[in-house]
């Protein structure tokens, strides 16, 4: 292969890796919308929480993987507390109030982060046995940790698919995203499904923040950045559709990566142009059933 073909391959790998990471955040967002009917602006804060937990616990324990094993349950407990205290009263209310409450929550969480960790950018070390690059050709190589990230994300996406297709909870989730009232009237404990979906969303977003920490580092505002891109993914894929979130994430990841390579000055805009195009073509998203939800 020529150098430029390998360069191209590296960009594709980068785009897929970015997309897969995005999928972990966007899938939770789209599930929470689709099943609970809640728009959660603070979803990005769970990503941030995960990254900062990984940073703090990795320093404390000295081991990145132990840090993750401890941080995931912590993030879930935090998410369940928020669900019980703040989100439950919102289920029956207009989207407007959900937007506002979660907007207030972002402001508060961002300041708590600033109080606890300060406003500096922190790095998290890549685990030692993954801290090498795979040599491709000439000066071109690909970091092993990024490959590891992609594999982890793919494994989780596969697990999510199995869970949704094969388990009782997955059945309730599929039914709930099709018709919430019907699920309730069939005697499925919807409050339990809500809690499980919310916890799942938190765990996915926080985990994404954790494994991204060694590559993207840990910095103020990181949650909002990924939140808005996740919105774009959900709009492109269609609300409530995991399949749509997966495809949308990969599209956005690739578009963003190639945008940065070929039009650096306009790189921030590529994903929005893509979104505008999808909106023109299919206002409900690629796999959306109904734009008026």
């Amino acid at each position, binding site marked *: 292969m020529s150098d430029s073909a390998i360069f191209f391959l590296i960009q594709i790998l980068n785009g897929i890796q970015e997309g897969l990471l995005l999928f972990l955040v966007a899938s939770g967002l789209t599930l929470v*919308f689709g099943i609970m009917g809640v*728009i959660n602006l603070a979803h990005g804060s769970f990503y941030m929480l995960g990254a900062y937990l990984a940073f703090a616990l990795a320093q404390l324990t000295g081991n990145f993987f132990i840090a993750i094993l401890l941080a995931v349950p912590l993030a879930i407990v935090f998410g369940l507390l928020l669900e019980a205290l*703040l989100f439950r*009263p*919102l289920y029956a*209310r207009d*989207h*407007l*109030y959900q*937007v*506002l*409450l979660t*907007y*207030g*929550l*972002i*402001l*508060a*969480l*961002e*300041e*708590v982060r*600033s*109080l606890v960790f300060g406003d500096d950018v922190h790095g998290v070390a890549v685990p030692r046995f993954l801290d090498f690059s795979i040599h491709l050709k000439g000066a071109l190589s690909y970091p092993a940790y990024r490959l590891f990230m992609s594999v982890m994300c793919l494994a989780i996406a596969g697990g999510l698919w199995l869970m949704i297709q094969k388990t009782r909870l997955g059945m309730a989730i599929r039914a709930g995203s099709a018709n919430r009232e019907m699920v309730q009237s069939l005697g499925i404990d919807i409050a339990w499904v809500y809690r499980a979906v919310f916890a799942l969303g938190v765990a996915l977003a926080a985990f994404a923040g954790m494994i991204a920490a060694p590559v993207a580092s840990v910095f103020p505002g990181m949650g*909002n950045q990924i939140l*808005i891109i996740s*919105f*774009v993914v*959900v*709009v492109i894929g269609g*609300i409530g559709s995991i399949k749509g979130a997966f495809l949308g994430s990969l599209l956005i990841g690739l578009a963003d990566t190639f945008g940065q390579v070929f039009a650096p*000055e*306009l*790189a*921030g*805009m590529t994903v*929005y*142009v893509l*979104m*505008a195009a999808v*909106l*023109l073509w299919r*206002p*409900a*998203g690629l796999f959306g059933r109904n*734009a*008026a*939800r």
Partner: protein
Amino acid sequence: MKPRASIEPVLLALALIALIVFPLLGAKFYLQLFAKIMIMAVFAMSLDLLVGYAGLVSFGHAAFYGIGAYMLWWLSPQYAAANFWLTLPAAMAAAALAALAIGLLVLRSSGVYFIMVTLAFAQMFFYFATGSKFFGGSDGVYVYVKPAAFLFDLDGAAHFYYLALAAMAGTYLLLRLLIGTLYGRALLGIKSNETRMRSLGYSTFGYKLAAFALAGSLAGLAGYLDAAQYGFVNPDLFGWRLSGLALMMVILGGMGTLYGPIIGAFVLVLLQDALSDATKHWLLPLGIFIILAVLFLPRGLSGLARRAEGPHG
């Protein structure tokens, strides 16, 4: 509702008189603060037209605020004053045009989609301004000389205060009159049941698009005044934080009332001012305040007043 309808103009007239005489007693600092509040009130009222009357919850209204602000910078000669009477309409027209173009796209969606799509488009402007060398990147740009208006002097705190007051009163009157027209009634009809309006033969898309463009141009007016007041324009003016703050003013004050967003602007800007004096981490108490307000004040401050008035409200 009936007895309130007669009180409202009286209260508003009293408030207007109080604001007119205020500069006679206020210190310069308060004139600037109040001018800022009234600019935010224009912005919040323009959003109320969308949220409270057309039922369009936009989370990206700052896009048009930012356009108004950047237009003033773009149209200003570097070391001379721009002509107020030319640049203001140009800034408002630019914001309206942008709103028209974006409205054509975003109004194809509704509900939760609409919230996300408007937010995403505003972020697009944010990233464009951040990445663009011409627009000064993330550092922003400066308007060194305030626009000249010939009749009055924008450099004087009192003059600028009255300009902001005129903008606020004018916006209120314009929107109040508009809501009384058939067009305004149709908007309310669309808010309560769009399908019904469509089956009655209304082209609801056109109605919503017109409201979106008008709200955009008024947001542009507010952004223009912001840039004229502080002489500093940066990408944060496009940001989700400003959009969210405006939404909070509308909800806290009481949406669909027009005077509610004015109250919301006063409460939130004064609160912000007091908190940021007290602590560097003022966003924490502000965030907690917003969360508590949503949980415990479901109908805003004006809803609180209505409840206090008695069960007929």
